[in-house]
């Protein structure tokens, strides 16, 4: 079974999990041989660890990875390098020997994927800029679909700049293989966002379209331009068009409600304020990330009167709101909005109160495929990020107690009134026809 060498996000399959870092030793074995090796390793560890078998600590790490490995079907899909995997194989072995069934809850949420620990191993020849970016991602210092896409593309510009084609190779073919471990490293830091995936797919298209006869320096400059154009056209300019379009929907005296922090909604509100409209904003926020506070800071410094509350209070606030503006991480073909966890609740309550829900989303965020609930693809925030909110009452995982922090959820299209894209205001049902109408695949 050929292990894919390029970490392709793939058209419709959720790229939520990570792709295997190319393990030459394992690649050369067949599936049966690999399973044998794993069994042997596990038995060896089991024999070693029989003494402290009573410890309950392994239970804290949901054994998602070793479960997949044990079943052998996904043959070689791993989240981490080899070392942490053995520890997890241990955990499974311990649980099985102690006779206690792994608590059911872990099985339901196991496909969400384990939140990555910090010091993930760096495999192979990774550009230092990529390492830096991976660290920023895993620490949630760069957070948000647009921010991550722009950061990724900018970093890749640097990588391409410092790349030299080895002898007997063409840039168009070799550059891909050069980039794929970098991409894998980023994905291992934090699962790929749809925006990153789309941007990288476009980049690959551009790379493969480079003329074989082009001088390397020219080719690199060309790619540089392509990346710049992509960022400029599909992210920044699109953002400005959306700002103008959505701004028209804000009238004097409006009360706009928004949730968490969407970069594009922030731009819309600030732009409308610059245009001289008088309106007020309700910022609804939710722990643990509490991103809304930053939005609140930016809006109040622009002089917009704001109200701030947490998510459970939303039913009291919606009586005052005239429109709800939300951002999206991505939109699926059926018009379902994949966005920060909590957005679905906001949209649901707004619909119940008869308040219009407007989603601001650039077309490069569109994703093929259909998702029906927040379970199909999601990401758990690692506990180090959630604990940084510094609560005295914070709960540490104990026996029978796990914390889950899904980062995203899916808002069904029935709760959405309109989607503002750079091509205009569309109803959520028309999302699937936009790429076609624009004459491109995505």
């Amino acid at each position, binding site marked *: 079974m050929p292990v894919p060498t390029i970490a392709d996000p793939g058209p419709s399959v959720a790229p939520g999990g990570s792709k295997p870092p190319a393990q030459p030793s394992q690649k050369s074995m067949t599936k049966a041989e690999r399973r044998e090796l794993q069994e042997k390793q596990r038995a060896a560890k089991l024999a070693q660890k029989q003494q402290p078998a009573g410890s309950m600590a392994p239970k804290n790490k949901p054994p998602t990875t070793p479960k997949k490995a044990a079943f052998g079907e996904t043959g070689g899909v791993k989240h981490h390098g080899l070392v942490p995997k053995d520890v997890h194989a241990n955990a499974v072995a311990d649980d099985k020997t102690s006779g206690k069934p792994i608590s059911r809850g872990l099985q339901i949420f196991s496909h969400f994927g384990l939140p990555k620990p910090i010091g993930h191993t760096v495999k192979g020849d990774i550009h230092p800029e990529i390492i830096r970016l991976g660290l920023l991602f895993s620490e949630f210092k760069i957070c948000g679909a647009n921010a991550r896409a722009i950061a990724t593309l900018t970093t890749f510009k640097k990588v391409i700049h410092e790349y030299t084609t080895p002898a007997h190779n063409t840039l168009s073919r070799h550059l891909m293989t050069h980039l794929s471990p970098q991409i894998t490293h980023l994905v291992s830091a934090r699962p790929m966002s749809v925006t990153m995936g789309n941007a990288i797919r476009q980049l690959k298209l551009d790379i493969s379209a480079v003329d074989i006869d082009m001088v390397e320096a020219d080719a690199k400059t060309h790619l540089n331009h392509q990346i710049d154009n992509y960022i400029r056209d599909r992210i920044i300019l699109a953002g400005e068009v959306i700002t103008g379009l959505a701004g028209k929907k804000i009238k004097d005296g409006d009360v706009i409600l928004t949730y968490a922090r969407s970069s594009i909604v922030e731009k819309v509100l600030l732009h409308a304020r610059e245009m001289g409209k008088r309106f007020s904003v309700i910022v609804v926020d939710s722990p643990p990330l509490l991103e809304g506070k930053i939005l609140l800071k930016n809006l109040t410094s622009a002089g917009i009167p704001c109200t701030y509350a947490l998510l459970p209070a939303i039913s009291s606030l919606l009586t005052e709101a005239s429109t709800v503006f939300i951002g999206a991480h991505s939109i699926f073909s059926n018009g379902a909005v994949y966005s920060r966890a909590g957005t679905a609740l906001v949209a649901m309550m707004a619909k*119940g109160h008869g308040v219009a829900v407007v989603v601001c989303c650039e077309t490069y965020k569109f994703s093929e495929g259909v998702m029906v609930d927040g379970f199909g693809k999601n990401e758990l925030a690692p506990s180090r990020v959630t604990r940084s909110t510094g609560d005295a009452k914070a709960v540490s995982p104990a026996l029978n107690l796990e914390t889950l922090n899904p980062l995203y959820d899916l808002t069904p299209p029935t709760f959405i009134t309109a989607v503002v894209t750079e091509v205009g205001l569309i109803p959520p049902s028309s999302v699937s026809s936009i790429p076609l109408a624009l004459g491109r695949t995505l």
Partner: protein
Amino acid sequence: MAPDIARNTASQRSVEVLASKLRRRQLVGSRTTALETVLVLRQVVSKARFSNLEQLVDIIRNAGRKLVEAQPKEHSVGNTVRKVLHHIREEYHTATRGTSVVPTAPSYSIAKFVSQGQPRKQITAPKAESKGTIKEHDANDPDSFAKGLKPVLMEAIQDVLDELETVYDNISKNARDHIHSDEIILTLGMSKTVEAFLKAAAHHRNYTVIVAETAPSYDGREMAKSLSSAGISTFLVPDSSIYALMSRVNKVIIGAHAILANGGMFAITGSQIAATAARAHSTPVVVCAGQFKLTPLWNLYHEYGALDFGNPSDVLGFEEGDLVDKTDVVNPYYDYVRPELIDAYITNDGDHPPSSIYRLLKETYDDEDTEL
């Protein structure tokens, strides 16, 4: 008369003490306030001097009014007063009639219904001339009435107290019928009733509980700790993920602060979004609440549940410095949940749908007590 005054002021003092505790929010929580109210009323009744029922009712009503005015948002105070009054009237009728005065089950026939309208619980006025063992208005011995009736009254109040003390046990009695194996239950906030309910079911069933943190009070964390220490597999999640996880949740079980006359309820903020999300997924919403939470009250005019607000610094603290100046911070403490969002109330007196709450109210309280 001096000893009388002394006795009266003693009970007055206890009422004042409780009223100031309520006003200062030193006493919070429906069950605790209900218990304290019963104890104070017991003291008031034991020290009270009256020669007929109306006087006693007035005394109790006055005490009750003071307490309710001290803290109108703790509905269980008023409910307990009404309950005590109801029991007292019942016991009085039993005592004066000699035999049980509860009207024999009225024959419900269509003809009667058409001619007389809806059958209502008969509240017969105490007939002064009906003699049982109690003599009212005895000029020679003004205390005889009171003395004769007091043991009966004490029993009545003791009944109310017993009911309050066994609330958790009675509600948890049928817990295992409501929760099946391998279910996933969603709950939020810290409700001792729900906690007892879930722990009782855990003895018989193996299931998982998802607890929403319920910011900004973060009561959910306490609940999660308590449940997990009882051996229930628990997941603590932030409120934002309620919708995301709802597709896997089999039941939503929440507690109530007060049950209103239309079948709706006041509950901790967050209950409204959980119930609405459950409705969107057709997941049943079950509320565990003691009968002392039944309130003859309607929420007609405002969305802010019970008009009670928590500390805004829990939402945006002063460490945010200049933000605090420029923003309005809202922190409502309660939500109002419409009766359409609730599927069942599990009370210590059985399970009821929201549509029959009005009937429960009629049976538990007397109409004239709605306004204390």
